[in-house]
């Protein structure tokens, strides 16, 4: 493994995430006006939509790192792909739960199976829920990294295709935000939304860096343990894991 320093810039990133998220959420309640149609419950929009957008972008980023691993064979890219998908899954859980709460408040139902936006997001989530079991099922680290990268690339390509396909069909109840009119949001709402989105994106990057730093520290510790135990040939078995082995 080449010399990696994943913790670089972690402190300013963490501070930036906190400032943007707290500032953004403060603007949600103190600056952005209540929606004329939905009223106060529309405040969930500033949390739910950034969660969904950042999760989907994270899945695509996982695919991009998958391509980089397949091209270079550098395990660091596999680790990055794994971490991006891992954190995106957490954010996707948040998007699903907050969306469901919003649906109950707004439409009177926790879930609407006829709505393509909801179902397509659930399909993407379930697809990526298979990623960790897939990794865990393969014992050989080399094969695990290769197969997982192929999965990340194929699933990553499915995300934008899915997004376009959903927008091509008629929406039942779910509003469209990313349109040329910006979902017809007034300026104050749009600024608040963009700050919340930036905060969520920064939180994603920060959590990825935390995870990468933690994994790297564990790998270094294991290598040190082997050296002290005089096991440079690596005959001490490594515990089976879904996480990449550097």
């Amino acid at each position, binding site marked *: 493994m080449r010399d990696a320093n994943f913790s670089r810039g972690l402190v300013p990133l963490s501070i930036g995430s906190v400032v943007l998220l707290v500032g953004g*959420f403060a603007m949600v309640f103190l600056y952005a006006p209540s*929606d004329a*149609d*939905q*009223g*106060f*419950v529309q*405040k*969930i929009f500033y*949390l*739910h939509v950034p*969660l969904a957008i950042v999760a989907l972008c994270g899945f695509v980023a996982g695919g991009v790192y998958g391509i980089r691993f397949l091209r270079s064979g550098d395990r660091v890219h596999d680790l990055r792909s794994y971490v991006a998908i891992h954190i995106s899954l*957490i954010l996707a*859980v*948040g998007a699903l*739960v*907050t969306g469901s*709460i*919003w649906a*109950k*408040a*707004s*439409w*009177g139902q926790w879930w609407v199976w006829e709505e393509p936006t909801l179902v397509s997001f659930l399909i993407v989530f379930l697809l990526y829920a298979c990623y960790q079991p897939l990794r865990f099922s393969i014992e050989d680290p080399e094969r695990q990294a290769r197969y997982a990268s192929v999965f990340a690339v194929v699933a990553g390509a499915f995300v934008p295709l899915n997004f376009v396909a959903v927008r091509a069909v008629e929406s039942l109840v779910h509003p469209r935000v990313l349109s040329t009119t910006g979902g017809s949001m007034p300026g104050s709402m749009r600024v608040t939304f963009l700050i919340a989105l930036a905060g969520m994106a920064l*939180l994603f990057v920060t*959590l990825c860096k*935390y995870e990468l730093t*933690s994994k790297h*520290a*564990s790998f270094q*510790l294991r290598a*040190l*343990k082997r050296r*002290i*135990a005089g096991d440079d040939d690596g005959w001490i078995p490594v515990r089976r894991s879904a996480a990449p082995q550097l």
Partner: protein
Amino acid sequence: MPALPLGDAGPYVAAAYLVFLALVLIYVAIMAVKLARVEREIGELAALAEQRPAERADERETVSR
């Protein structure tokens, strides 16, 4: 559906933001468990590293005899 009044919408909004807070806190708790494990393993390594010179000194003493 008509817009919910503030009193009825409040719990839904609070629940959504609390879900997000809970997710972040659960992640922090998991990271704390991992950190504790790394700390424990470093402690074991430090103990092993301290033990090594003592063992080597014993070996040298035996050979010199």
